[in-house]
């Protein structure tokens, strides 16, 4: 059993965090809404720390580094499709999971052509079409899909697409909890810091349980993506489901505990809540994820490595 992330991956995460923070942190995301140069700055930072040298499909060690980078990027709402670029199919072709009926890709303008896949493995070339023009998805665009004849996305690609998305959301959630803790310790009402009120303290405690559990599930399923030889997506879907449940709730409560300031963009929580929405909703909302998970469990089970000869 080895649950803790290796020191090398943690170090890499810390370096990435420092670099992104120095480049402005959430300010980059704020700026990117009106200035495309912010995305370019984010990309330079990521290139500088070696993002393009990671081969996430190659081995678990690289995949862990890639996942950690997604998590850290989520914590700053970095205005760049980190997971999609880590899984790029050629130098300049990022990879995204889509719903083929309503194909939308976040940060779609990053590339002229994308490789897109559905969770069932259908493969497409995607071209950005039009911005969705929403405050909760400032970089998302509808895309046009062209089927790739005879192509299928590999199980590993689909697993990693789901997993990196979940690690990315984990980063959003962890930062939101941290902001909620900081804010409720400082903001006073009725003569006390908000964190003196038990309903707030207990909610923070529950949020931390959710995030710690999600963190562990992220690690478990990444490990399983490389060790489970079946074509099952159940482990990867389970993480997406948990990320949707936990991070959506964490963002909501963190915003709530900021009061009205939670909706003002000068507060980081407002930017995080908005920029997390595409990741929470694409390619599947929670209901669709759950239904897919049930089908995957029906077909392949959900024992994991914890049972000698099945659960019974």
């Amino acid at each position: 059993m080895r649950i803790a992330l290796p020191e090398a991956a943690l170090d890499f995460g810390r370096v990435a965090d420092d670099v992104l923070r120095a480049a402005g942190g959430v300010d980059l995301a704020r700026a990117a809404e009106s200035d495309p140069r912010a995305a370019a700055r984010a990309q330079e930072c990521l290139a500088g720390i070696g993002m393009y040298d990671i081969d996430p499909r190659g081995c678990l060690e690289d995949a862990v580094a890639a996942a950690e980078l997604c998590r850290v990027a989520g914590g700053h709402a970095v205005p760049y499709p980190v997971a999609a670029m880590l899984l790029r199919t050629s130098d300049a072709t990022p990879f995204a999971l889509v719903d083929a009926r309503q194909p939308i890709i976040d940060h779609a303008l990053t590339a002229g052509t994308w490789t897109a896949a559905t969770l069932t493995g259908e493969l497409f070339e995607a071209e950005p079409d039009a911005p969705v023009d929403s405050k909760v998805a400032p970089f998302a665009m509808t895309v046009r899909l062209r089927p790739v004849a005879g192509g299928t996305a590999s199980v590993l690609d689909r697993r990693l697409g789901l997993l990196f998305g979940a690690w990315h959301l984990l980063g959003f959630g962890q930062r939101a909890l941290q902001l909620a803790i900081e804010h409720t310790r400082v903001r006073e009402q009725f003569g006390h810091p908000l964190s003196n009120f038990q309903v707030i303290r207990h909610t923070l405690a529950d949020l931390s349980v959710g995030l710690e559990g999600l963190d562990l599930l992220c690690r478990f399923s990444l490990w399983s993506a490389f060790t489970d030889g079946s074509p099952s997506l159940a482990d990867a879907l389970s993480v997406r489901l948990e990320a949707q449940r936990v991070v959506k709730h964490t963002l909501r409560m963190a915003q709530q505990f900021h009061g009205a300031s939670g909706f003002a963009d000068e507060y980081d929580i407002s930017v995080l809540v908005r920029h997390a929405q595409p990741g929470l909703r694409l390619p599947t909302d929670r209901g669709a994820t759950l239904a897919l998970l049930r089908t995957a469990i029906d077909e392949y089970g959900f024992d994991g490595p914890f049972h000698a000869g099945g659960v019974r």
Partner: protein
Amino acid sequence: MTAVLDFTMGESAAALRGRLRRMVAEFFPDDFLGAFTDDPADLALTQRFSRLLADEGLLTVAWPREFGGSDGSVWEQTVVREEMWAYHEPRGPQYMGLNWVGPAIMAYGTAEQKAEHLPRIATGETIWCQGFSEPGSGSDLASLQTRAVRTGDHWEITGQKIWTSYAGMADWCVLAARTGDKDSGRRGISLFLIPMDRPGITVRPLRAMLGPHHLNECFFDSVVATDAEVLGEVGTGWSVMKTALAHERVGIARYARCERLLWLLRDVLRHEWDDLDEGVRNEWSGALVQVRVARLLAYRAVERQEGNEMVDLEASQARIASTTCDQQVAEVVSQLLGPRSLLGAAAGAPAHGAFEDHWRYAQAATVASGTIEIQREIVSRELLGRQAVR
């Protein structure tokens, strides 16, 4: 080179799991639902099974050999916990001694106390109970009022305990009493290791939703205790209790029974499964995810405990996840069963009443061993005292 990540427990732990399952399957009838039923034969069976486990070195697998253990790994111990809880705790009331009384005596006991108690816990001969809670002191345990008064060369203990599980069958009690003055709070509490047949002790069972033996009242009327029966130093009971409660919080692998029952239910309903409401079947899948999360949080607490790191935060987080998951699973199961979820000891009850039994137990999960609200207090204190989340 160590693996980057690894979620397997090792070959010996996996083999142990298989062995325990075979032992349980051979020893217990299909309708076994634990020691605490109206049929005293169930309790007797668990006592015999505990001796069998002890003979095979499995009762105290992770204890050091000098105290009657097998020097096993914490992961072997985890497997034992999981398999035992999954199959309705076939060690019966023994788990109290194994889980925290033994370890507390190991950590804080005198050489004489270790020699007297540890071998008998390791062989499953003695039943222990925990005399902490009082009518006026539940969550606020440090306010307890049972008094131990110095009289000549011994102590005299007077007061009342309540909710004391297994008190009616226990041979020994870890009794928390106030040795300091009335307002001494945490600093004035001491622990005593008292035989339950000592004059002055009266036990009264309390009828309860959980079935017999779980809840009792204990009255202590000038019960004599010697200095040799104090566990740790006089006045240090609180810190021993805190360690004990941390052990207790990760000691029950609730997720293991949840997972087994979810799959058992699937099996019971196999002919009608596809016709059941899709939303509830989805929830069944979601419940499996919550079970896995609870399992992983428990593993993390175990890993930290192994490294002797402070585990208050991790133990409470694991406890919150496993107790809420217990109740969520109970709810999903009863949704899927419909009216049949009420069939308890009735003939034809699904899984011989295992689901009905689980629902009742799960309701108390967020109260026993410290309520979920108190766990949230512990977690939030740690969180608000720490800047970084990771």
